[in-house]
């Protein structure tokens, strides 16, 4: 048995399915491409469920931006679904698509400053 060889083949297929890698020899190109879309849409749905705020903020552009994001940022092993969804949110901020989320503590501190400056 050659675990290493099989591990390599499985990793190669996942790179093709999740990260825009070359389709490994012997696979049906159309089916791999169909699976790419299925996997990306599933991740997109899960992300929208966990971070409805992102979909609400982006509206119709949610899907398009997720597609741009997903291939360059496949979900890493050991990443929880929430971390994966939050990473998309951070990317959107980095791209200038969304404003950084206001931190509540910062907000309260600012309000306190405002109050003290008025008094």
């Amino acid at each position, binding site marked *: *048995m050659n675990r290493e060889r099989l*591990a390599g083949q499985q990793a190669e297929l996942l790179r093709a399915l999740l990260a825009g890698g070359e389709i490994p020899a012997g696979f049906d190109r159309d089916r791999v491409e169909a699976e790419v879309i299925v996997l990306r849409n599933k991740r997109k749905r899960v992300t929208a469920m966990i971070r409805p705020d992102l979909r609400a903020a982006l509206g119709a552009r949610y899907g398009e931006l997720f597609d741009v994001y997903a291939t360059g940022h496949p979900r*890493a092993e050991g990443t929880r679904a929430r971390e994966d969804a939050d990473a998309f949110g951070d990317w959107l901020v980095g791209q200038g698509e969304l404003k950084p989320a206001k931190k509540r503590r910062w907000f309260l501190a600012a309000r306190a400053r405002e109050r003290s400056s008025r008094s």
Partner: protein
Amino acid sequence: MVAGVAAEAAVADASGSPLGKLGVGIGWREEIDLSIPRLPGVDWVEVVAENLHTEHLPESLLDLRERGLPVLPHGVSLSLGSAEPVDTRRVEHLAEVANALGAPMASDHVCFVRAGGLDSGHLLPLPRTREALDVLVDNVKLTQSILDVPFALENIAALLEWPDAELTEAQFLTELTERTGCLLIVDVANLYANARNLKVDPEAFLDEIPLERLAYVHVAGGVERDGLYHDTHAHPVLPAVLDLLGELRSRVDPPGVLLERDDDYPTDSELASELAAIRAVVTR
């Protein structure tokens, strides 16, 4: 391999199953947790193990347990077909959930989920080669050594196939059960998907797999899109899938049948009528 031996002894028993008679069940999901107790004819539920923490089991699930309904945990992340080492923490979690629920068995899928540092979040097919079967058998034996209950594995729906298959899916599953003593969950919707998308002969599949090792059956809905059948669990169950359930029923009286719905939840009455349709097929 205590679990394997126990399963084998029980299967040989006249009851035909280590589980006794489960009846008709439904996949427990948070979104329908209040509907389930109201649905007529729910004899048991299955729950995705990864969604549970043993210290904080949902009240609505514990209520079902208290009413005497079997609650069986089903794993989706063990990735037992992965050539990389098994993440035994995931298996330990499944074992803890099974124990916390007092479940008679636990299960996952014949698939891989992760490889090369990436997580697909999905159940992906294995190459049907001796090499891949050897890896899976080793991983299943390790899993069985951690679990305190019998272990079952389910056939998945695949959109693509690996090249150079050496075994049919039925041969692959038969050898898997022979070498590990595991039980099988047959998903007839996945079988339908593979018949449509991969030209698997579903009746030959049912003829060839060891039905005496059947733990229970899954039924789910899906949709045809661009010439492919997608096992969405978000659409109604197709009549053709119920026909396959009938094909299975003509060969064996399954210990249990379970309806899975994971998204776009319909009304209670629609779920009830799907459960009734399933019951009508398996009750003879």
